[in-house]
């Protein structure tokens, strides 16, 4: 490839406030069309916006977590354009004084760490939705649903610092993880809570002058983002190879074909006529507010991962998996707090717990019927030798199904491990007597037969025999 791709990303995250950014309507997703509206978000004459303070707080969180400086005098601006899903004929956004500026995130691609600049983060309101459909009683027409209008968004704009689709994905995943950790966005790509536009251009390898970019829109999964950028690289490379020029334009990604098509060109670009919104007063953010937010920030994934490795002694891989979501990390930490053997807990969380949730229709960790307290109880039973590791897995499955305490299950099903030497000795004798051929083989030097005897004894004990005692007695008898 003789071209270097240059990628910058604009991410719109919908904030998880209960009410909209400029009115008291609910932000709940998926309600009856236009049921969550009022004169303010419908843009009725005479209605006025009032800022939801929570939005500012969430924006400060995002800014601090991405190493931005926080603008202390914030001004909202009107972005003017006509569209049926935009009730007022303008969007209230921020223009020359965004709330966060000059930040960065460090990403890792193929073992290398790279710093991606964040130009700005600003607060704005979302638009509604147009539904183009044959709706009963309406006919083949376009309908406007304004439930989403006026819901709060943060637009997070990166520098054009990414040089491959993989870097773009790594940046997005990192950003996604952070907004979820901060509790400011539900991260749902399909419902549009985390939307991405990509600016993609090519320049000759070695050049420092960026080529003309295309802006890609309508990409709602990580997979599609990669596809869209890859397609765009191919498309632009072909144009340049043929001696043509890339046109600056907005292109729409089509997930069905994996291609992009032109939506509007530069000549059709809007003049948004931004100006300060006279209905809103400047939002002043004193130092104290910033410090308060900073002190309440959760531990972010990067710091958490480092701590798991340094303090808990977990392998890098375990740490990476466990911090992938804030909820999973919390589950892990709560369990470790009750059963302080980091690696054993890690094995169980990444193993049995993850498997059970996965098989249960990808159930969320927060809904796991085996709570951290119950899991810790189970691990304690195992540690005390009351049950074996093998039995513990059976008990876990039962706990997952019934939500019962492990002691109760062990008791009900009579699963207590047998460590009584006399009882086990009787079983060992029985097995050895019943299999004289194998005993002969073992004594003749074929020590691999040992596993067979262990298995037979465990079976005779219905899995309850303490494996250590079984081993010891078998060895003693066979070597005798």
């Amino acid at each position, binding site marked *: 490839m003789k071209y270097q791709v240059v990628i910058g990303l604009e991410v719109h995250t919908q904030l998880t406030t209960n009410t909209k950014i400029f009115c008291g309507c609910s932000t709940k997703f998926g309600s009856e069309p236009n049921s969550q509206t009022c004169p303010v978000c419908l843009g009725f*004459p005479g209605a006025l916006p009032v800022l939801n303070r929570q939005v500012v707080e969430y924006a400060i969180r995002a800014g601090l977590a991405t190493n931005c400086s926080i603008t202390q005098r914030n001004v909202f601006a009107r972005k*003017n354009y006509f569209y049926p899903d935009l009730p007022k*004929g303008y969007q209230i956004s921020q223009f020359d004084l965004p709330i966060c500026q000059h930040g960065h995130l460090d990403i890792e691609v193929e073992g290398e760490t790279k710093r991606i600049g964040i130009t700005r983060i600003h607060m704005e309101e979302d638009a509604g939705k147009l539904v183009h459909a044959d709706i009963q009683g309406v006919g083949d027409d376009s309908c406007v649903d304004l439930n989403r209008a006026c819901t709060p968004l943060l637009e997070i704009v990166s520098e054009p610092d990414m040089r491959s689709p993989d870097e773009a994905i790594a940046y997005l995943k990192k950003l996604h993880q952070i907004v979820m950790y901060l509790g400011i966005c539900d991260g749902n790509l399909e419902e549009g809570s985390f939307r991405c536009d990509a600016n993609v251009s090519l320049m000759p390898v070695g050049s420092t002058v960026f080529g003309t970019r295309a802006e890609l829109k309508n990409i709602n999964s990580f997979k599609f983002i990669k596809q869209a950028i890859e397609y765009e690289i191919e498309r632009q490379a072909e144009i340049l190879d043929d001696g043509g020029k890339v046109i600056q334009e907005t292109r729409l990604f089509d997930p069905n074909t994996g291609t992009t098509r032109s939506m509007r060109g530069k000549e059709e670009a809007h003049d948004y006529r931004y100006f300060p919104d006279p209905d809103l*007063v400047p939002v002043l953010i004193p130092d104290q507010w910033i410090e308060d937010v900073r002190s309440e920030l959760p531990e972010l994934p990067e710091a958490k991962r480092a701590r798991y490795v340094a303090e808990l002694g977990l392998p890098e891989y375990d740490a990476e998996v466990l911090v992938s979501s804030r909820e999973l990390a919390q589950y892990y930490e709560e369990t470790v707090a009750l059963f302080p053997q980091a690696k054993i807990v890690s094995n169980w969380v990444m193993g049995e717990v993850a498997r059970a949730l996965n098989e249960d229709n990808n159930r969320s960790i927060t809904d796991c019927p085996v709570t951290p307290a119950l899991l810790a109880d189970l691990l304690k039973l195992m540690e005390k030798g009351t049950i074996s590791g093998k039995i513990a897995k059976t008990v876990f499955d039962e706990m997952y199904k019934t939500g019962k305490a492990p002691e109760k299950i062990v008791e009900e099903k009579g699963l207590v491990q047998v460590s009584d030497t006399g009882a086990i000795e009787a079983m060992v004798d029985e097995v050895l007597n019943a299999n004289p051929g194998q005993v002969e083989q073992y004594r003749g030097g074929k020590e691999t037969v040992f596993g067979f005897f262990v298995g037979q004894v465990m079976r005779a004990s219905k899995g309850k025999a303490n494996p250590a005692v079984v081993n010891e007695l078998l060895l003693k008898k066979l070597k005798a």
Partner: protein
Amino acid sequence: MEIFDLTIHELHEKLKAKEVSSVEATRAMLDRIEAVDGQVNAYITVTPEQALVEAEAADRRIAAGDIAPLTGIPMGLKDIFITKGIRTTCGSRILENFVPPYDGTAVAKLKEQGAVIVGKLNQDEFAMGSSNESSYFGPVKNPWNLECTPGGSSGGSAAAIAARTATATLGTDTGGSIRQPASHCSCVGVKPTYGRVSRYGVIAYASSLDQVGPLTRDVTDAALLLGAVAGYDPKDSTSVNTPVPDYLAGLKSGVKGLKIGLPKQYFIEGLDPDVKRAMDEAIALYKSLGAELREVSLPHTEYAVATYYLIATAEASSNLARYDGVRFGHRAEEVRGLKEMFAKTRAEGFGSEVKRRIMLGTYALSSGYYDAYYVKAQKVRTLIMQDFLNAFNEVDVLLTPIAPTPPFKIGEKLADPLQMYLSDIFTIPVNLAGTCGISIPAGFSAAGLPIGLQLIGKPFGEATILSTAYAFEQETQWHLKKAPL
């Protein structure tokens, strides 16, 4: 003296003494509207059924001994006020059939007191005009001379006071839209400090300049009605959280020792001689009452009109974008596609003055012109504000004419928008500075047309301009004169 001639405070006494009921007062007002409004055209919508229901409720309240200053008083509202269940047109075809689903804050406050709304008053379309000629519902005639305009944009609100078809009214003032028609119709009109009265539920023209205020027969009523609607409103981020003084209690504080400034830029060559004479008489009167008068300077006055027509139109071009035919109001029929729906709806729905201002404002905000026009205008606005603050370091109140001339004839200035814009030169700076002003009757021209006097106060200095106006009113008879109708 007929019931419809009474002031709020006079009618209140009679209601309280049960000499008259609210239903009687309301009927008298509705009959008066029926009798004379055909000549004046002050009302766009009259609401007799609702008014009588409200009057009955007011009478029950009064019978129960629960009477507030506005209980049972028949009032009119400029049609810019959003009223739940009552058509609200803003003087425009685009809202010809718009019935809002909610009440604005000022209206809700009137209703809480039990005021009776008899109808919605004519105005310039979207409050854009100084003569009430841009209304889709036809011009309002000045009750003092039916060939003249009542001023604008709250022309209906002022004319209804002069025609005695409402006891009191509410208007809005963006560049003089309360004070100038009050002056032209010989009534009292107050433009409060920006942020004093909530704008929630008031259809926006220019958001950083619009302010709600009373139009009344005398200063006492103005104090009373302003007190009723003023105050912080969490629904309007630009309303200011500062206590509302008891304006009535302060009315009689007098002007002895009060420093009154005369801005030299407002007493210019070309001021109509009748207006000049009225100002001279007012100055002499205040001197005789013990006030100290002195000349002050507001050096940036000459830039006020240009500044206003950039800022107001820029904001208006954006504020009026919501009239797109999608959710409410007029929608053009037989259109192909979205763009045509927007364009045709707006082409049909807006009148020519509104279109002119939308275009001016769009231009001022356009990329490449924004800094030269909008940003520069904001800088000049700051200088104008500073002019006033400097003057108020020297004096307590400013005294100026409201308009350079008495009311002009209908049609006289229509062909020359610039001439029309310049007629607001003495009122516009007050809006740009965000401070308060009052217009009070101060005489008549040789032709018998009203002339108003403006008193401008410090930000949130409404109590001072009201008491200064009250002192003048006590010594003059102008406010008692009735229009020949």
